[in-house]
């Protein structure tokens, strides 16, 4: 029996898999400012009093702004996925066209040696961790082959 796949606690509504993986931020109906995670009750532009904030699908591709990895297991509430712990990489990615940088884990198997500032990446939805009956999902970044 396959496990249920649900967004990890806290990330509900932060990303979608419909029409391809993408982050879902918000866009202010008044001034057009985009934010991620969603602004839910006030526009982050200090000169805008807008309160109508619409779900906005963000660009699923971007350019690495910076990157690192986690060689030691982070403390709780991080949930490890393997024992012994396996390091993972993280990247801050400048989304194409949205004017913002979003942090995310890099997919398994890709290390910092495969990355550089300026590397092109795309968003995927992947498993953050699993328990007996559920896969808890999250967005991750994956290098775009042939687009370095």
């Amino acid at each position, binding site marked *: 029996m396959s496990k249920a796949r649900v967004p*990890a*606690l*806290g*990330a509900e509504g932060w990303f979608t898999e419909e029409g391809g993986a993408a982050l879902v931020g918000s866009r202010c109906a008044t*001034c*057009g*400012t*985009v*934010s*991620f*995670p969603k602004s839910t009750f006030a526009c*982050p*532009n*200090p*000169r805008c009093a807008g309160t109508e904030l619409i779900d906005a699908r963000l660009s699923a591709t971007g350019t690495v*702004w*910076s*990157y*690192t*990895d*986690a*060689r*030691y297991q*982070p*403390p*709780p*509430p*991080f*949930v490890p996925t393997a024992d012994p712990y396996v390091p*993972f990489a*993280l990247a*801050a990615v400048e989304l194409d*066209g*949205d*004017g*913002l*940088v*979003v*942090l*995310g*884990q890099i997919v398994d198997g890709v290390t*910092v040696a495969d990355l*550089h*500032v*300026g590397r092109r990446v795309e968003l995927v939805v992947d498993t*953050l961790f699993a328990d007996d009956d559920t896969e808890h999902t*999250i967005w991750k970044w994956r290098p775009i082959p042939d687009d370095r």
Partner: protein
Amino acid sequence: MTDDVVVAGAGMTAWGKWGRNFVEYGVEAAREALADAGVEWTDVQYVAGGETVRNGYAGYVAGSSISQALGWNGAQVSTSYGACASGAQAIDVARNRILAGRCDVALVVGADTTPKGFLAPNAGDRPDDPDWLRFRLLGATNPAYFALMARRRIDVHGAAPEDFAQVKVKNSKHGMANPRARYRKEVTVAEVLDSPVVADPLHLLDICATSDGGAAVVLTSAHKARELGIASPVRVRAVSTVTPSFPNTVIEMPNFATDSSGVVAPPPRTFMDSIAHVAYEEAGIGPEDLSVAEVYDLATALELDWYEHLGLCAVGEAEKLLRNGDTAIGGRIPVNPSGGLACFGEAVPAQAIAQVCEVVWQLRGEAGDRQVEGAKVGITANKGLFGHGSSVLLST
């Protein structure tokens, strides 16, 4: 506005990892600062505490907890929190009260007892809390955020891991002359590079530890300092506790993303640049006037960032400044003569106050073997979670 606010006394425990109650460190530092100022505790009219969020309710009300331990004296009180900027907020709050003419003797004190290992959120599921979420959803520890900045220096400015290690080498040399430092041992570039990588490109020895410690200053009006017979006290020339301006386009711990610059263009000055800028503007002092700086080397690479944010050099030139020896004691503008966080480890609410203590001792010429000759003007700078930065500018 009354006349200047001065630092009449400074006090600081040795930094370490003893697991005593944080209040104890606060009392020790406060008593040293009071003795240094020649002020009786019962003459203190105002206590500004830096809060610790890791020591239960007593830590939330640190100003009050430390006052109670010193013995209730009927002073007025506040407790401030702003992550690593907490101590500077408390200094700002006390200074304003004196400038407002509402008291003339204030004690500012912060102290912490920290757990081993990574700083991590309190227990319980809190999906509303960005600081909880970044651990759960990303596994992004504090060093991960430091490492993102470090990697930028390498890929964008051509820094090398050896440059970061040289920061540690410099600061460990400085710290050897500081009796309050926790680590007093010369470190070599090889030792840094041979230490395990924690968050690429940062090694264990690139990243500061967490420590126990307490620091305090007694602030008074210049008038009161004269009454106390303090001939030429160090003056507080400016305090900055500025927040970012939208859009903040550099990722802040513990956030998941930056603001978007899609609609509003970025401000002329980045947040990090604005921290010292606000202090310079208040004081009418510029980076060219500085004799000494204490900056937050949470990681070695971040000290290099600070050189640029303080205006000690142009963007991308920090490694050159370091390699020239300009930021070592004896150089043009020594940075972290105390040994910095590299030798102390971080005790959050005490650290910004400890930075001020070091600058005070430097400006008084009391820094012993780590003295910056002829120091006249000093700045402190630090940065914590959630858009908190602060800077204190002091002069003879």
